[in-house]
């Protein structure tokens, strides 16, 4: 149980941050894709900037995880089609529903239960990908 507590707390922190930043808002996503505000770019940009610095410090200090291994980000597989096509399909859905997978769950917590329909559809999408995976170019 103690092992799971830290993940639960990280989740709570993440949920609070995304609500307070308004990144869970459909309106903010629309505004971002219209390039009408710096807000979302500021969030993503400063997150990546901070992330780069934190990872550089971890590397420099040879920081170890609580599991005893060196802290590192697993490398993504090489590829082009899966990233550009898969990414675009996700982008279409992100703009339409205004929610990526993190906010989907978080919004249920804010009392938007119709988001459960989006989550169910996302599970269906994942399932269909799993079925078609071997037939798709990657």
């Amino acid at each position, binding site marked *: 149980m103690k092992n799971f507590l830290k993940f639960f707390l990280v989740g709570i*922190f993440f949920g609070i941050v995304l609500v307070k930043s308004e990144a869970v808002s459909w309106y903010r996503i629309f505004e971002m894709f219209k390039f009408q505000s710096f807000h979302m770019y500021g*969030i993503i940009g400063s997150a990546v900037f901070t992330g780069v610095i934190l990872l550089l410090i971890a590397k420099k200090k040879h920081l170890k*995880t609580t599991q005893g291994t060196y802290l590192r980000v697993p490398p993504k597989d090489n590829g082009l089609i899966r990233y550009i096509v898969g990414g675009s399909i996700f982008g279409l859905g992100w703009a339409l529903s205004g929610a990526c997978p993190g906010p989907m769950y978080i919004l249920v917590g804010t009392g938007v239960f119709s988001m459960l*329909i989006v989550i169910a559809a996302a599970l269906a999408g994942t399932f269909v990908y799993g079925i078609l995976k071997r037939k798709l170019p990657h």
Partner: protein
Amino acid sequence: MELIKEPWPWYVSGPCIAITMFLLLYFGRTFGMSSNLRTMCAMGGAGKYSEFFKFDWKSQKWNLTVVIGAIVGGFIAHFFLSNPTDISLSTETIKDLHELGFKNVGNSLLPPELFAWKNVLTLKGIAILLVGGFLVGFGTRYAGGCTSGHAITGLSSLQLPSLIAVIGFFIGGLIMIHLIFPILF
């Protein structure tokens, strides 16, 4: 406390998201929200239909715990840490949404035109949520990650595949908002 209840500026929120990513890496895991969709499919027995879902989903319980925490976090933030204020969207955004037929823009986190039950339970309403969700679920698994896995974690570790994926996110998003929305609304 009053400061917490106001909307947080981007320069506070962004670094906090990076800390979330970093904490999970520090615990020997990675930050990736869409992976949970695959885990939930596996839990539901999808392994019977595809090798993709044949893995030890119990090893992902930590990530499902993050999800439960995120739901609780959303609840806490919305009901205890927020003053009822409108989202301070840009005036152009409000004007554009008015033209598309959206009213009371920014009064709530999400437009009631899409998420209030009376609109969800119309053919168009339910189709939008189902199609939107389906594309997110399919696209994230195809691309191997979403905003958390690619845009935050992947870019922070300077990975080219993630940059390509994020470009894809924008291709899709821009097509939806600029080409499809005018037909849809």
